[in-house]
């Protein structure tokens, strides 16, 4: 029997999900996270999950781990003491950054630009110069490099970045300098920019390399320690770390390019949602992942998660392939308050996990979205949060009462108002990824997960006219599920900058093949068997002089005479859809890319029995508030629901780690994978 294990480290819980590959069944285990050393929680989770399943860690084939180690150390500013070796005259590249400020007219007033990740006094330069054409203007002086490195090491630098001007065209100087560093200071970790981003944009390339170096020592320590602890426990399979783009890579690659796991956790949700989208034949889905402090939304089209080529973490916008997620400060813990003039606002301030919403009974007194759900019994009396926490309904009422008093309205009306405003904020986020990018949400379904997502899913689907609304069987652990469905992958890119019509197909074909062989070498090093390797090719195009780049998928076999017309058509169609117009301007291929994958198929078990009666799984009835009045509402137990069953709204469905709401005039069907599929009653 083969087992695959996904483990996702969250703020409060570490989720473990084990797939029994032949049966396609899943086993869930949740343990408390251990923020001071994540690996403790991970090991404990693996141990308990194995116990629950009755297997030994030695029987696991693969562990796929989403880690927030890099995220946290960047956001908390706790990375390595970095040194930077760059081109003479470019010492201040990290200060120059971009001219971006948060909003015009007043944005500069409140903005405090953080100090660069590497201070100026730990920056040294070399007089070597690479021209924009890739020809060396001045060669690398080894003695100069050595003395600069000696100075940096004497300054206490424990991780080095080498980022030279134009190294994306010709990385030779960067590689020479790396070799010198490695021979002179064998224990000093080195990141060179051309290894991480071989594209133009000097600031972003340097910043990405610097952040990579910032994370390197701690990440190496973390993954080495985790791997050896797992091995001690008997595990001898493959340990992979989840990347920001939803793929995975080996421990060895992670230690080389830790910046690519900066958004490891959230990517899993979108990959998991995209997988389910394919399974249930709803390839176009809006995804909404609502947690305690924020909600992540994304748009999946054609059953694939949306990918972008940059990433943002705090102030830093760097170049790293990542799942295209839009985040908004609205979650279960978001606090409702009245402004000085009496406007009701919800979030972005959050009660977090501690003290948490008032209903947690841990001393929180400010009203949150979760409290409003408790007041209206959308989270029904007697339900437990995260399977263990008793709800303090009186505390929730007292908190929401402060809003009711401020507005001079009933308690229930105040609670509904809080939910309405929170839903509007998430609705706006969904518009950003759909309407604003030229998609009509009516062509999409909506899949909701995260601890709070299923409570709000029906309302959001109604607001944005997405149909149907899908609630997966394990909404609280969809990220871990996504890890199980992820492929080993990495991207190889090159700045191209050629006008389409002036570029012969042979040249483009040859360049793409070059990238494919780079990808192939990497997959070989990752230990991926040849028969599961796959490659995707992209030409990122734009109108000449534009700054955006629109990815266009290429079939290598179709890059032959006449490809230019097809590419123009593809680009212009996408440009029109996104922006509503096209221009009579030449099209330029800015970047060419190859994504190399080691595919890891996943098949879930499916229950095709049909025709359970709709009364199955009713645990009790409660009064639940919808549309201004209380309704006698059945409370279902999710684990008791059967495939084929249809639940008429209003209904509340409770399960281990979340609660789902079906509104009046909507009904939920249970499908063969135990998804709840919510649609307007009487609608096809």
């Amino acid at each position: 029997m083969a087992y695959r294990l996904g483990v996702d480290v969250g703020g409060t819980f570490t989720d473990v999900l084990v797939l029994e590959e032949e049966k396609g069944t899943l086993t869930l285990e949740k343990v408390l996270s251990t923020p001071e050393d994540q690996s403790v929680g991970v090991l404990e989770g693996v141990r308990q999950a194995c116990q629950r399943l009755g297997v030994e860690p030695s029987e696991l084939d693969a562990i796929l781990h989403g880690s927030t180690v890099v995220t946290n150390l960047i956001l908390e500013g706790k990375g390595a003491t970095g040194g930077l070796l760059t081109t003479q005259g470019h010492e201040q590249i990290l200060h120059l950054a971009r001219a971006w400020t948060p909003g015009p007219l007043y944005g500069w007033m409140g903005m405090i630009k953080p100090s660069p990740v590497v201070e100026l006094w730990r920056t040294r330069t070399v007089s070597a110069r690479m021209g924009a054409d890739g020809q060396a203007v001045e060669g690398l002086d080894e003695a100069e490099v050595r003395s600069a490195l000696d100075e940096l090491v004497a300054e206490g630098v424990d991780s080095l970045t080498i980022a030279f001007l134009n190294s994306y065209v010709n990385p030779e100087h960067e590689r020479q300098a790396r070799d010198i560093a490695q021979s002179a200071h064998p224990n000093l970790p080195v990141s060179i920019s051309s290894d991480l981003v071989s594209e133009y944009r000097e600031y972003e390339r340097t910043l990405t390399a610097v952040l990579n170096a910032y994370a390197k020592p701690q990440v190496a320590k973390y993954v080495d320690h985790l791997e050896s602890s797992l091995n001690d426990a008997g595990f001898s399979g493959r340990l992979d770390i989840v990347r920001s783009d939803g793929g995975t890579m080996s421990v060895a690659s992670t230690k080389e390019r830790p910046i690519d796991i900066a958004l490891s956790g959230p990517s899993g949700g979108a990959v998991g949602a995209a997988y389910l989208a394919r399974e249930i034949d709803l390839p176009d889905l809006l995804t909404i992942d609502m947690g305690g402090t924020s909600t992540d939304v994304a748009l999946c089209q054609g059953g694939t998660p949306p990918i972008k080529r940059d990433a943002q973490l705090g102030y830093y916008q760097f170049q790293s392939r990542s799942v295209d997620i839009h985040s908004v400060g609205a979650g279960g813990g978001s606090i409702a308050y009245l402004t000085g003039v009496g406007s009701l606002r919800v979030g972005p301030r959050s009660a977090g996990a501690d003290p948490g919403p008032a209903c947690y009974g841990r001393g929180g007194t400010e009203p949150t979205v979760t409290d409003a759900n408790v007041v209206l019994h959308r989270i029904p009396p007697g339900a437990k949060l995260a399977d263990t926490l008793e709800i303090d309904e009186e505390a929730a009422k007292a908190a929401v009462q402060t809003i009711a008093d401020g507005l001079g309205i009933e308690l229930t009306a105040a609670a509904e108002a809080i939910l309405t405003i929170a839903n509007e904020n998430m609705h706006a986020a969904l518009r950003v990824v759909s309407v604003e990018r030229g998609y009509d949400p009516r062509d999409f379904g909506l899949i909701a997960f995260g601890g709070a997502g299923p409570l709000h899913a029906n309302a959001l689907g109604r607001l944005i006219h997405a149909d149907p609304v899908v609630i997966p069987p394990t909404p609280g652990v969809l990220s871990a599920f996504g890890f199980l469905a992820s492929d080993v992958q990495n991207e190889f890119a090159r700045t191209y900058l050629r006008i389409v019509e002036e570029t012969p197909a042979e040249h483009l074909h040859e360049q793409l093949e070059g990238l494919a062989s780079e990808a192939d070498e990497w997959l070989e090093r990752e230990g991926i068997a040849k028969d599961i390797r796959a490659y995707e090719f992209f030409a990122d195009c734009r109108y000449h002089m534009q700054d955006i780049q629109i990815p266009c998928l290429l079939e290598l076999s179709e890059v032959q005479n006449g490809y230019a017309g097809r590419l123009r058509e593809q680009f212009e169609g996408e440009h029109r859809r996104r922006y509503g117009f096209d221009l009579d301007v030449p099209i330029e291929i800015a970047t060419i890319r190859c994504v190399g994958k080691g595919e890891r198929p996943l098949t879930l078990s499916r229950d095709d029995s049909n025709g359970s009666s709709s009364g199955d799984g009713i645990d009790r009835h409660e009064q639940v508030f919808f549309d201004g009045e209380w309704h006698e509402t059945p409370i279902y137990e999710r684990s008791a629901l059967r495939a084929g069953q249809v639940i008429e709204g209003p209904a509340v469905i409770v399960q281990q780690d979340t609660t789902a709401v079906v509104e009046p005039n909507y009904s939920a069907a249970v499908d063969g994978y135990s998804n709840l599929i919510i649609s307007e009653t009487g609608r096809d």
Partner: protein
Amino acid sequence: MATQVESAQVPDFVREHDIDHVTLDIIENTLSNARFEMDRVVETTAISPVIREQSDQFPLIADRHGRMVIGQFGAAINTILKNSPYEPSDLRDGDVIAMNDPYLCEGSISHCPDLLILRPIFYEDDLVGYSSQWGNLMDVGGTSAGSMPISAKSIYYEGIRMPPIKLYDAGRLNEEALRLFCHNTRTPKMVEADIKAIAAGTAAGAARVRELCARFGKETYLEACDAMLDRTRSGVIDLIRAHLPDGERFEFIDHADDDGLGNGPIKLQMALWRDGDTMNVDWTGTSPEVPGSVNFFLTPEMFKMFMGVFLIMAFSPDLVFNDGYYDVVNVTFPENYGAENLAGKAAKFAVTVNEVRIPKETALDEHGQMVKGRADKPNQHDILTGSRPDGTGFPGAPFPDMTCGNWTRGGKEGSAMLGHHDRSGPVDNAWATSWNSSHVSTGCDAESLRSTGGDARFYCFAAK
């Protein structure tokens, strides 16, 4: 003689509002999201890096009377229409008015590269408001590339000016006019794309307003606009009362060196005081217009906009920024300011309201934040110099040492000379207010330096 712009009567929207509180909050939230959507549409589609990277584009949504209910700049909608051949009753669904002349929109845009788009919004054939947005184009012709000539002596140096025209008439693009305008710029393709991008931004705002009308009803939407103006007005009154002590008069004077053409110094003088709920600003004493390109065409309405946006964003950023408070701010300009003069003037950036901050902004730290000066705590205006007023070193023995022994001493003995970055000194003499030579420290150890000049951020030593 100064022209006093009398504060208007209490505006009509100050009253009880017939709207459900939660509906009002939803409309307010939605309009606020719509304003950011307008930003994103323009910033992703524009070609000009001034728009894309520096966000030099500003959106607004106004009510049917032309009052901004949410947004970012002064809505001189009625002035724009007055300067056009169109009455509001001539406007139709799909019309888009474009213009780039600062003098025809009360300075809503401050120079010709800013292209302003104004789109009336109709719901069920009734005018329910306007969306408007402007962005800084790459070039509009004139004597220098980028159309910001520092040698300009009149607005004609800046390039082509478009008076308010219908760029789209009931949805049909006036291609001839667009071609004429673009042909007069150095970057015609970019300008064409950017104008279309700005028009697309206003279309996004208009769509959201129509959705709100459909969702809540037109009357409710219009009532919400009034209520939002009223809310902001009372919020600003609270801010004025909280932050300006009644009766106390704050005055400020500073000078810009010159206008780049040898005329100067140019004096800026402003007084600020509160009178009940009203904030008064008087610019009397400020120098008249100068020939060079440092004039800033500022109307009372525009200055109210600046006062309000900074007040709100600094002290109460969750208050919606709109035109509601204009009657509680009085602005007085000297008569010779030239605000009414529609003849060719070089309307330019340099003397902007930002200059009010000059006495502190003489020194910025590594984050671009102001280094504290004399009026602040702690006072960090000292600069360790050891220099004479002209910036050269003291002659040395037998004269007293002013450099703590060439910066080697660390005890109570000796002293060092200090200057002041905020140019305020112990006495009003030129030397005492200089950067170089204001007073000496009482010793050379950390404690003495801290009490007489060591609690500072700068040093600047004489080279000779």
